[in-house]
């Protein structure tokens, strides 16, 4: 599976035709703009995540795919068919609702079979398909139960089975794991991924949970104020965030502000009030002017704490005092206060169970990071 997955990148292939194409789509509610001139391609078999804070327009985007909202401007095509004016009940798209929206007056079986009955399939075929779905989500034993007799996790499975029963071209999932507790959520994430892979369907998931998006998605679109800020693989989003908003929204990050001093051997030299000397950043993609104000983003796990003097060949050295220590079991988070007053977060994996003489509060330490650990974000 891994090998197949790794080579899956239809978005990089210019001859590939997208399954879904948003072209300059704008959606207004009265004066409020929910989606703003947005263009986006989603490809077949992709597990695509729309990620963003609440009110960023991700749900509106999904509701336009389902047909509950019509774009004010622009067009949406699905498999080369313009979706304008096509009502929800005529789209080859099914949705799993955040509230699950299970019909309380129907048992599990009838809930799952609802869509098939609308298509007027023969009874025997409906029964067979419902059984198949029940097996798929491992709910065979609960077929006759009513939604009020199910746990949250079971409801989630019924909702998923109901949405999958019609074998839609495209499955929309609105915060599919939002109502589950943490343990169950993690399990279900992997189940969803396996399911999507096994069924070969296209999944579009709306979520505000970046961890969820990172785990499941082939690509993530980060949205803010009705626009897409970046569309990329989870790795690219995390390691090469385009803007400060993304760097801060996805994962933890330390932002060091500074000014460009010049370029040396292809590395940017940056002067920052946070650092002891000049900072050296390896981010060749950026085109910068001397004197330009920039922000440097460094992930906490890419910073290293040194007790005493830093190694002499270290390029980026910050000096500070241990302000806070948070022990998380697998990781320990250190909050280091710099002389400028800024605080940087450094995480360290706890590789051994016992440490003699651990780093203590108020200790003077040095923090370093490699030039290629940092990303330059133009302000």
């Amino acid at each position, binding site marked *: 599976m891994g090998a197949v997955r790794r080579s899956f990148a239809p978005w990089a292939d210019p001859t590939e035709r997208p399954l879904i194409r948003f072209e300059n789509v704008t959606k207004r509610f009265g004066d409020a703009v929910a989606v703003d001139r947005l263009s986006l391609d989603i490809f077949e078999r992709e597990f695509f995540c729309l990620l963003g804070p609440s009110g960023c327009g991700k749900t509106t985007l999904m509701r336009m795919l*389902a*047909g*509950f909202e019509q774009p004010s401007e622009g067009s949406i095509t699905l498999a080369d068919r313009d979706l304008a004016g096509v*009502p*929800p*009940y005529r789209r080859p*798209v*099914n*949705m799993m*609702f*955040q*509230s*699950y*929206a*299970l*019909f*309380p*007056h129907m048992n599990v079986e009838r809930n799952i079979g*609802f*869509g098939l009955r*609308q*298509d007027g399939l023969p009874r025997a075929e409906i029964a067979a398909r419902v059984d198949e779905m029940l097996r798929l989500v491992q709910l065979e034993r609960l077929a006759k139960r009513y*939604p*009020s007799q*199910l746990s*949250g996790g079971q*409801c989630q499975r019924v909702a998923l089975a*109901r949405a999958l029963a*019609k074998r839609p071209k495209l499955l929309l999932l609105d915060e599919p794991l939002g*109502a589950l507790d943490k343990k169950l959520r993690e399990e279900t994430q992997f189940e969803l991924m396996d399911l999507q892979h096994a069924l070969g369907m296209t999944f579009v998931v709306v979520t505000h949970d970046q961890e969820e998006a990172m785990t499941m998605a082939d690509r993530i679109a980060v949205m803010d104020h009705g626009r897409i800020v970046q569309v990329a693989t989870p790795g690219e989003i995390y390691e090469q965030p385009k803007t400060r908003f993304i760097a801060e929204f996805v994962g933890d990050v330390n932002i060091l502000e500074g000014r460009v001093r010049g370029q040396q051997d292809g590395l940017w030299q940056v002067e920052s009030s946070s650092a002891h000397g000049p900072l050296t950043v390896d981010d060749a993609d950026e085109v910068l002017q001397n004197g330009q104000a920039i922000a440097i983003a460094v992930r906490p796990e890419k910073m290293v704490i040194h007790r005493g003097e830093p190694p002499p060949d270290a390029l980026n050295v910050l000096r500070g005092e241990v302000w806070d220590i948070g022990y998380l079991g697998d990781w320990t988070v250190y909050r280091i206060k710099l002389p400028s007053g800024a605080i940087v977060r450094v995480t360290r994996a706890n590789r051994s169970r016992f440490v003699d003489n651990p780093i203590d509060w108020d200790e003077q330490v040095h923090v370093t990071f490699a030039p290629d650990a940092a990303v330059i974000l133009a302000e």
Partner: protein
Amino acid sequence: MTRRLSLFNVTSLVLGFAFLYLPILLLVVYSFNASRLVTVWGGFSTQWYAAFFRNEALMDAAWVTFRIALLSASFATVLGTLAALALTRYGRFTGRTLFTGMVYAPMVMPEVITGLSLLLFFVAIDLDRGFLTVMLAHTTLTMCFVTVIVQARLMTLDRSLEEAAMDLGAPPLRTFFSVTLPLIAPSVVAGFLLAFTLSLDDLVIASFNTGPGATTLPIRIYSQVRLGLSPEINAASAILIGIVTLGVIVATLISKRSSLTPQRSEIH
């Protein structure tokens, strides 16, 4: 809520209920009076009930009343449910606030005015007063009660249930019959029962719009009482009170139960 009732509370409760129900109680008690004199107790008897069932004029009136109540409540239920749907489901269309106010207006409008205006309307369109006009007038009167009850239920109903049905391929009408209606059914039934009882005991609007052959029980009772009290009327009234009380209690229970039954999809 573990506070005990004080003497003051008990007294005011008793006085309040006595004020409301003593006259009715008196009527029911005297319907079992053996004496022909309405105000003199002559021992227990059910003879006036028997007399009521033998009295053709009263029985005719009861039958007319029942048919009018059944028909007008049915029409009111359909119209009232449709109005509730329009007011809760079709967003903020222009004039929505006005419509909401207008639907509620008959609840507070003096019955004399409703009755009179309906009479003028029927005269204007040259409709002969009778069974049909009383039935239509009662539909007008009771529709708003159905709307209020159904609307309350619709507002608490998770909108995504209907969206899910459409998403799974059900066109709007089928969505209504397979998802919306089953879920609001208790409120619709409660609305029907309320409309039925309101029509059953209405005197004012019925007497404005009635005509030959459409004398309802309340009209008959009222006109007989003007000629003098008779224990038979007491019996008829007691039966009417019984039906209305039962209707209101059942309607209340149904709508209460449906609003208390939690919907799993609304908890999450």
